[in-house]
């Protein structure tokens, strides 16, 4: 697929860039986060083109939950390339998020509360684990 | 000649069923591929209307050329078309009614000069003028030829060989009288001759000088020639009336006369339809190629000029030339008159549309012989008048007595100071001694 002399969906890439620019303006003016889904777009060969256009930013977040996800800032601050994969590494969602911080990165209050409960016992838990290994 | 006809134009009478059947027979009698194709092709684009002087001048859609042959087309589709059975079965081309046929008389006769401008514009290549000529066969067969002068003259022509009923001896006397009047030697009914000139009955009645002019030119050429009283009047009113039998009789009369004296050339007078008939149809009536040439008088003169058999004096003056449709557009004799005018040193101011796309004088196709068509004809003439006035010249030459008569008539009605003249007579008057 890389030896394409002409990428048939370059027009689509242009359209996406326009949309992202629009989302960025809304983020700046109203503080509104937004996103656009890539996975169901007919982008096959030139997703690379979009990736190339947006480039690599300063920050990347690795999420290891039900599956592995990467949330990577592009060279345009506030524009995040999010890829959700399942536990076999298969991509199940791919989207461009436009936000100061992507929603999923923020810790959920219930999760924080549960963690808070767990924290005092953390040293004991760690010792227990070491003993088991030994 | 109008003064001679006594019959006033009766209104088109509604024909009976027998007449309608006869019309249908007349329409289909000589159907062939060309006509069938023409009748099958029309896409109703309406452009032919824009080429027709009667529509252009009146804006009446009935004068759309292809519409004029509508009964003909219906007869074709219904009787002899490829799907004739379906047309009859489903009533797709309803039978022509007597009423319709009566109404179409005006369209097929009064409002068509058979000038062929419509044939020139038709994107489908339909020769509408030819269709009208054939449609007239049906009308004539039904006894619906426009009844006044045209019908009367055609009838007399069919019966006697001359529209005015002149017999051979009268021709002979007249020719000798003309010879005497104009001081020219007339050859009449010689046993053998190379060239046999013919005349038009308009010449006989209105322009006898033109007969003297032919004689002058032929004598000047030193040609062996003779008028033949057994094949003399080429007018062929029958053709424009739609009388196929009469048309054939006149044509074959001339052919036989020319054969009788071993002629190698038959010269047609200053007349339109008679030329196309003799030049293109005579051989078909005869059944094989003719053993002689058929030339219109301007062609003969142009040829004579080019080989030096005819020498003329220069008579420089300004003039315009009116093309007869049948000679120029339809007959291919467009160049000859211009060659002659140049030889005479005439400064030719061509009218707009001269040559191929010229407008008819309004009298062609026998319309000049239909009294009730006069207002329509006058309307058509306005175009010609306008175009002539634009040239600014005082003299109009033409090589067709029919056109000449129509132009003179139209000019008279408008108190014109223009002179309408015969090109043949101009040549005859200016031959080098």
């Amino acid at each position: 697929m890389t030896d394409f002399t002409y990428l048939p969906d370059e027009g689509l890439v242009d359209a996406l860039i326009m949309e992202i620019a629009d989302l960025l303006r809304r983020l700046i003016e109203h503080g509104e986060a937004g996103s656009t889904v890539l996975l169901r777009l007919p982008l096959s060969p030139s997703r690379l083109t979009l990736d190339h256009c947006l480039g690599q930013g300063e920050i990347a977040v690795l999420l290891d939950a039900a599956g592995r996800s990467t949330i990577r800032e592009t060279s345009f601050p506030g524009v995040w390339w999010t890829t959700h994969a399942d536990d076999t590494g298969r991509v199940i969602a791919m989207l461009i998020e436009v936000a100061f911080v992507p929603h999923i990165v923020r810790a959920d209050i219930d999760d924080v509360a549960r963690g808070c409960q767990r924290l005092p016992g953390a040293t004991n838990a760690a010792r227990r684990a070491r003993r088991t290994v030994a | 000649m109008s003064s001679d006809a006594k019959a006033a134009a009766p209104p088109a009478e509604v024909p009976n069923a027998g007449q309608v059947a006869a019309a249908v027979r007349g329409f289909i009698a000589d159907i062939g591929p060309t006509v069938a194709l023409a009748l099958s092709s029309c896409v109703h684009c309406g452009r032919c209307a824009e080429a027709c002087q009667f529509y252009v001048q009146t804006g009446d859609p009935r004068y759309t050329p292809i519409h004029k042959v509508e009964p003909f087309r219906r007869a074709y589709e219904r009787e002899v078309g490829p799907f004739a059975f379906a047309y009859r079965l489903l009533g797709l081309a309803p039978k022509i009614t007597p009423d319709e046929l009566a109404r179409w008389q005006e369209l097929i006769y009064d409002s068509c000069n058979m000038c062929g401008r419509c044939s020139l514009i038709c994107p489908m290549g339909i020769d509408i003028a030819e269709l009208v000529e054939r449609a007239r066969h049906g009308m004539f067969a039904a006894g619906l030829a426009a009844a006044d002068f045209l019908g009367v003259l055609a009838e007399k022509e069919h019966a006697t060989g001359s529209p005015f009923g002149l017999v051979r001896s009268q021709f002979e006397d007249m020719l000798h009288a003309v010879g005497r009047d104009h001081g020219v030697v007339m050859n009449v009914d010689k046993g053998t001759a190379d060239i046999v000139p013919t005349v038009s009955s308009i010449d006989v009645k209105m322009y006898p000088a033109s007969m003297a002019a032919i004689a002058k030119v032929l004598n000047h050429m030193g040609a062996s020639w003779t008028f033949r009283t057994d094949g003399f009047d080429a007018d062929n009113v029958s053709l424009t009336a739609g009388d196929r039998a009469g048309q054939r009789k006149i044509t074959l009369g001339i052919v036989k006369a020319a054969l009788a004296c071993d002629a190698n050339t038959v010269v047609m007078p200053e007349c339109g339809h008679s030329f196309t008939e003799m030049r293109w149809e005579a051989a078909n009536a005869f059944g094989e190629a003719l053993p002689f040439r058929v030339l219109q008088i301007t062609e003969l003169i142009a040829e004579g000029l080019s080989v030096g058999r005819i020498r003329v004096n220069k008579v420089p003056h300004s003039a315009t030339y009116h093309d007869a449709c049948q000679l120029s557009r339809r007959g291919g004799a467009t160049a000859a008159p211009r060659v002659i005018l140049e030889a005479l040193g005439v400064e030719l101011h061509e009218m707009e549309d001269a040559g191929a796309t010229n407008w008819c004088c309004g009298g062609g196709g026998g319309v000049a012989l239909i009294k009730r068509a006069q207002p329509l004809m006058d309307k058509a003439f306005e175009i010609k008048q306008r175009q002539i006035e634009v040239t600014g010249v005082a003299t109009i030459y033409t090589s067709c007595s029919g056109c000449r008569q129509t132009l003179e008539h139209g000019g008279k009605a408008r108190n014109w100071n223009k002179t309408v003249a015969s090109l043949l007579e101009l040549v005859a008057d200016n031959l080098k001694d």
Partner: protein
Amino acid sequence: MTLLAFARGPALQAALLIMIAGIFWRLAGIFLLPPRAQHAAPRHSLAGRIGGGALMIVSRFIPHHTFWPRVAMSVVLSTTFHLGLAIILLGGAPHILLIHQVTGLTWPGLPKGLIVISSGLTLASMIVLLIRRITHPVLRMLSTVDDYLSWLLVFLPVLTGILLAGETIGGYGTLLALHILSVELMMVWLPFGKLMHGALVFAGRWGMGMNFARKGAAT
């Protein structure tokens, strides 16, 4: 059997066979009539007459200069319509494909954008032509059921074709079926009405060109 399968199968076969039989029927019915022998000495040689016939096929696309002011509208509209139709028919890839399938001939197609523009122009010119036909006194008088039916049967394929290309209304399958069926209707009607001029125009011009060259008449 789906509508599309019907359109592509039995309907296509029936329409093509009817069209072929009808065209040959009509041509034979015209050209097997007794020809009229021409005995008069022609002004031009056979080669000249053939040249005249060929020339007229081309020259009658454009009217004589003097007629222009009166027929410009008619000429421009019908030329646009016919040219547009030719571009669609001969340049549209799916059409070439069908022609290839039927005849084995093929050539490169034009971009769909061009085809869509042509369809739009064709459609627009057809609508104006129809309005003219209804409003112009000459055309209104001349027009028969054949004229309006033929118009409709050409209009429908162009319309369904443009909808198909745009894929705006209805599914591709339905539109394709309707498009093919509308073309088939047109094919069935072609030999029997004025649409036959597609074949007759060349014969007519050729014959007139030959005849006029024979006489040296103005062409």
